[in-house]
């Protein structure tokens, strides 16, 4: 399956791109996707405790399984307003 991945704020700076598309085994949890990026960008892994994830524009637990066509985002602490 293929999922779309979005990075915002400082995560975008670390990964060097705002958007990516990744091939993963169907049902992989969001955590597995993050681990994959953490391996290629060790600085990203440091932020794991201060991030939340979303699946299809809704906050999602790290254990949430992913399916083809899903849109996942990794969200640093928000600072709007």
């Amino acid at each position: 399956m293929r999922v779309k991945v979005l990075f915002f704020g400082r995560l975008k700076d670390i990964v060097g791109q705002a958007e990516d598309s990744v091939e993963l085994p169907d049902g992989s949890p969001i955590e597995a996707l993050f681990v994959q990026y953490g391996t290629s960008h060790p600085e990203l892994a440091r932020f794991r405790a201060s991030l939340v994830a979303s699946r299809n524009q809704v906050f999602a637990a790290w254990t949430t399984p992913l399916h083809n066509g899903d849109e996942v985002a990794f969200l640093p602490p928000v600072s709007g307003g």
Partner: protein
Amino acid sequence: MTKTLQADLLLLVRDPIDHAVLIEHVRAAEDGAVVTFDGCVRNHSHGRRTLYLDYEAYETMALGQIREIVTQIHEKYPIHLVAIAHRLGRLEIGETSVFIAVSSPHRPAAFEACQFAIDTLKRTVPIWKKEYFEDGAVWADGELPPAPAETRAAKPAS
């Protein structure tokens, strides 16, 4: 009573926010109060002089989260209409980054709903600001939105 059926207004904008438009949007004959919150760009942060801010958003999700806030305040408070606009992109000192207007027949509900709306927006809406100083730029310290419990993991895709 002609405005009773008018809808709430939720906006993410790149141009300056027109306060008057939002206030007029929520003002209706049956309301005795319009309470507004004007969030503006401050010229200092943690003791440093701020030059300007740059806001970015996960726009589709941010609008969804703002809609969720509006739903919540309608459930919690006897208010009439809500207008919320958040600006994105580069903002200069003194400009409005977020503006909230709430109307209600009686003022306590509008005050409380307006405060709830801005407090919740700052915790749950995926918008980020980068602060530019004379000697560099940093992403502002933010608040971590509450994450769903891990126990709901096995839920199938919807």
